[in-house]
């Protein structure tokens, strides 16, 4: 257990880091804009170069906000899954949320091109892809909720979630096999994840969805703490298991499903970040762990986004590869350091 002073110090340190990274993320991009100009645009809304205004307001700030909220959402839903399944390797996608989303997108992108004569990429606006992904993950959520109301053992739900995921992945594979090259590329690019594709109008949907998901999760702190000792103990202390499961699965799906719909599947953040938060705050109490995980999630995804822009280069790397390359060493380091990951969550 840390002292109160130490915890406050950590909070200040993390908040400052988050702020610096957020600003740094806005400063960087494929077009070189002098630092002075960026601050001028942000604070005065004016610039001698009108294109700078457009770039910063329509691209860089939305992208930084997307990275921030995606980091919040994925890490918080990962924490919830690790707690409810009491499994350190659980993440936001164990329920099959991303598989469901990818099925939705695959059906839209490749299904249309395969089974109809019309193959127009232009028809598939970004909103259509978002809706398809949302519907796909919504379907999986519905299945999971229906099962969790009937199945007593939580491990059964975990295994069924993984099975759903594998089954949907198989269907997606079949679709990929039969689809034409151009559509296949649209789909593959979607699976690589992108923080830059979210427009301002889409942010107006994404941010409220994430905020609602986060609010629900923050109301579940007491329940999540009770879940730490297992559902039997939680029940013996008066917890309504069905309602709790419903709320946890619902908020997780809302958080992870929204991010996946708008940005594609982004891996490893949800698994790695809760572990980092546990190491930093040395607690399993969600009162500290939940906000801690959230803020560290924002930091890690902003950092990944900065790395993906390859400073000094005009190309952007797929975000999913970066989060994997950042996340995997962290997970390995945790395993070697702790030697007992089985009891981490």
């Amino acid at each position, binding site marked *: *257990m840390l002292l109160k002073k130490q915890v406050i110090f950590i909070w200040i340190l993390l908040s400052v880091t988050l702020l610096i990274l957020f600003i740094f993320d806005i400063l960087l991009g494929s077009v070189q804009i002098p630092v002075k100009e960026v601050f001028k645009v942000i604070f005065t809304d004016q610039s001698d170069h009108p294109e700078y205004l457009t770039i910063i307001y329509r691209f860089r700030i939305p992208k930084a906000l997307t990275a921030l909220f995606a980091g919040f959402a994925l890490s918080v839903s990962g924490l919830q899954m690790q707690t409810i399944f009491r499994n350190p390797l659980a993440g936001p996608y164990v329920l099959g949320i991303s598989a469901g989303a990818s099925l939705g997108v695959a059906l839209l992108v490749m299904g249309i091109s395969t089974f109809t004569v019309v193959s127009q990429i232009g028809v598939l606006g970004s909103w259509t892809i978002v809706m398809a992904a949302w519907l796909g993950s919504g379907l999986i959520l519905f299945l999971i909720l229906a099962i969790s109301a009937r199945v007593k053992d939580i491990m059964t739900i975990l295994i069924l979630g993984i099975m759903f995921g594998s089954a949907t992945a198989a269907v997606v594979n079949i679709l990929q096999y039969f689809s034409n090259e151009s559509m296949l590329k649209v789909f593959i690019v979607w699976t690589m994840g992108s923080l830059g594709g979210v427009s301002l109008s889409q942010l107006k949907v994404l941010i409220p969805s994430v905020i609602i998901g986060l609010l629900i999760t923050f*109301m579940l*702190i*007491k329940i999540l*703490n*009770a879940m*730490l*000792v*297992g559902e*039997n*103990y939680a*029940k*013996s*202390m*008066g*917890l*309504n298991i069905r309602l709790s499961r419903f709320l946890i699965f619902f908020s997780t799906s809302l958080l992870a499903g929204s991010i996946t719909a708008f940005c594609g599947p982004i891996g490893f953040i949800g698994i790695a970040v809760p572990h980092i938060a*546990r190491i930093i705050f*040395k*607690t*399993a*109490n969600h*009162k500290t762990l939940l906000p801690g995980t959230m803020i560290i999630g924002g930091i890690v995804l902003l950092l990944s986004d900065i790395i993906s822009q390859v400073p000094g280069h005009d190309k952007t790397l797929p975000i999913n590869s970066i989060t994997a390359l950042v996340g995997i060493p962290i997970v390995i380091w945790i395993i070697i350091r*702790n030697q*007992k990951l089985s*009891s*981490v*969550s």
Partner: protein
Amino acid sequence: MQSQDNILKIMNLEIGYPSKKGLNNILFKDINLSGNSGELIALVGKNGIGKSTLLRNITGLQQSIKGEIHFFDKSKEKFSRTEFARMVSFVSTEIVNISNLSVFDLVSLGRFPHTNWFGKLQSDDIVKSTRALEMVGMNDFARKNINEISDGERQRVMIARTLAQDTRIIVLDEPTAFLDLPNKYEIVHLLNKLSKQENKTVIFSTHDLNIAIQEADKIWLMLDDKINEGAPEDLILDETFNKIFEKSNLNFDKVKGDFRMHRKHAEKIGLIGDGIYYNWTKKALERLNFSVDKGNESIQYVKIETGNNSCRWKLTELENKYEFDSIYELSLYLKVQTKF
């Protein structure tokens, strides 16, 4: 005269697992039991007879098939979830091992049915959690992590959590299962103390019959076809205790209050000596399947000669005499003899 306050009354209970085809898998039926305040109750019976299932029925973790469980003369079903959690707390056999969870955080989880929706601990909750840790003698461990303490200490912390939950009834499923002998005694003694000091009804299942007999006020004894209750002494005197392991070679020694294996003795051996040396030598000889005959100097006998600080065992077999410095050496020799 009867003075009962009927905190817990179980009537015609049938426990088991319901199946969809209507053929219920019944583990045990016709269970009639009671518990009063200030009572430590030990649930005893052989493996697989349904002890855990009975406790899970009492704590509401499992539905019973038939019958009634009443708390304070009111059916279990009439209590709300929170009301029930303020009345009955539970420690299961599951080992809680969570890294980064402090002892205090775990104990204060017991305040769950008393705190608001956010789980904010008021000063009263903190006082009660601290006092719970004091009662089990773990107040120095509050800031430690739950995975850094020993099994015995963890069991105390789990008991403290039930005390923080502030319930009149505490149910524990085999709280002494993983512990070493001193810890087994200490935990059951602690439960006894808590039942008296805090006027609680404490129910625990156990396989440590010796400890249960010494500490429990009442024993719920699960036999193959019925369940008996009574003070341990009552159950010893009316021979019920002997029925627990009817089918095995284990017998209950009424005088010593102890179980021992029923042995078929093959060979006779005489033993001369007295006091504590005699008793322990006799035990060793019986372990080697000898039927011990006190004072008999027949064909084969052992004589114990005690000196100031030493003791020697003299074995006489027909004409041959051997001397041994320890019971172990004696038994080594006898083992070789009996083999051939």
